[in-house]
């Protein structure tokens, strides 16, 4: 399964669209994809927001991990606060570094929504703290999850983001990268 590389929305540059701009959007095609990547993210914004509508090709009606890597590295650790309509859970991990939960293939035509915020992504004085809020309603079941994560590999500016699932990202998965100006 081939990864997909995002194409920067350079056609928008220089136009007065306010402080919230599309950088690039990827929609996964037929057959799915092992990952979706955004490379050469410009450092001209202050914050990044990633809006995802995603699904895993894993068989069955389960919820799978939605994962993110930064500059080619996994995140350092993450915490979650989770609810599924019957129970609430919280926890942490330094090995399972998912940043969201998305439905598997058995949930036909149902995709999970995940919004990820990375503030001061190009600030080299800071390790990066990430917030993610997502959910899936699967018409009788579902999951809500609030994640926080730390990227402490170094304080370099974030220039690459890559997204994947436990199996592959299913067709019609859409991941949109936005830049938010701070000046």
């Amino acid at each position, binding site marked *: 399964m081939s990864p997909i590389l995002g194409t920067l929305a350079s056609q928008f540059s220089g136009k007065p669209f*306010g402080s919230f701009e599309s950088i690039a959007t990827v929609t996964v095609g037929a057959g799915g994809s092992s990952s979706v990547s955004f490379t050469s993210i410009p450092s001209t914004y*202050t914050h990044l927001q990633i809006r995802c509508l995603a699904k895993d090709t894993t068989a069955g009606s389960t919820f799978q991990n939605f994962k993110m890597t930064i500059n080619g590295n996994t995140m350092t*650790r993450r915490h979650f606060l989770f609810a599924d309509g019957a129970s609430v859970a*919280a926890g*942490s991990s330094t090995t399972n570094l998912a940043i969201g939960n998305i439905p598997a293939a058995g949930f036909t035509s149902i995709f999970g929504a995940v919004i990820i915020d990375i*503030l001061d992504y190009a600030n080299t*004085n800071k390790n990066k703290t990430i*917030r993610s809020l997502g959910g899936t309603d699967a018409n009788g079941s579902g999951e809500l999850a609030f994640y926080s994560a*730390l990227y402490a590999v170094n304080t370099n500016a974030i220039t690459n983001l890559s997204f994947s699932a436990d199996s592959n990202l299913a067709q019609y998965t859409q991941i949109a990268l936005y830049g938010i100006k*701070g000046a």
Partner: protein
Amino acid sequence: MANTYKLISSITVGSGGASDMEFTNIPQTYTDLLLKVTGRTNKGDLYNDLSIRFNNSSSDFSTLAFVSTGSGKSTFTTTSPYVGSLNDTGGTGGDNIFSSNDIYIFNYRGSNFKSVSADSAVERNNTGGDEKGLYSTLWSQNAAITTITLVSVGYTLSQYSTAYLYGISNA
């Protein structure tokens, strides 16, 4: 295309720290306001409450929160104007780490009480000391919001703490 999401102003705390981050003379031309905050205080602890003041008032607030620390989870109400948490400088594993906070203020220039929705994340590079939460805050005053102050009561905000104020328009 309408200019629906626009930076109003930003603050970066300089060397020596600051007692607060304050936005004054907020233009009355948007529908909602959004604050994006990264923060850290000089408190010798792991994390600390982030409080908000509108028009220099810390009265008439109520907050409902759903928070998690490690595997613990809880909910609480308070009359304190809490909208999240900030990293502190105590403990280990906290170097160069700042909180991540979004604070959304609805209908800030309307004549009704003001509703705030916020989410907050504090991380540390060791086991424990994290905190994240969802906050719903009400300011039971009718005045338009013209000044917003962000504070960690009793403590100094550290260098490189930042706050960005955006105006959101529905037209």
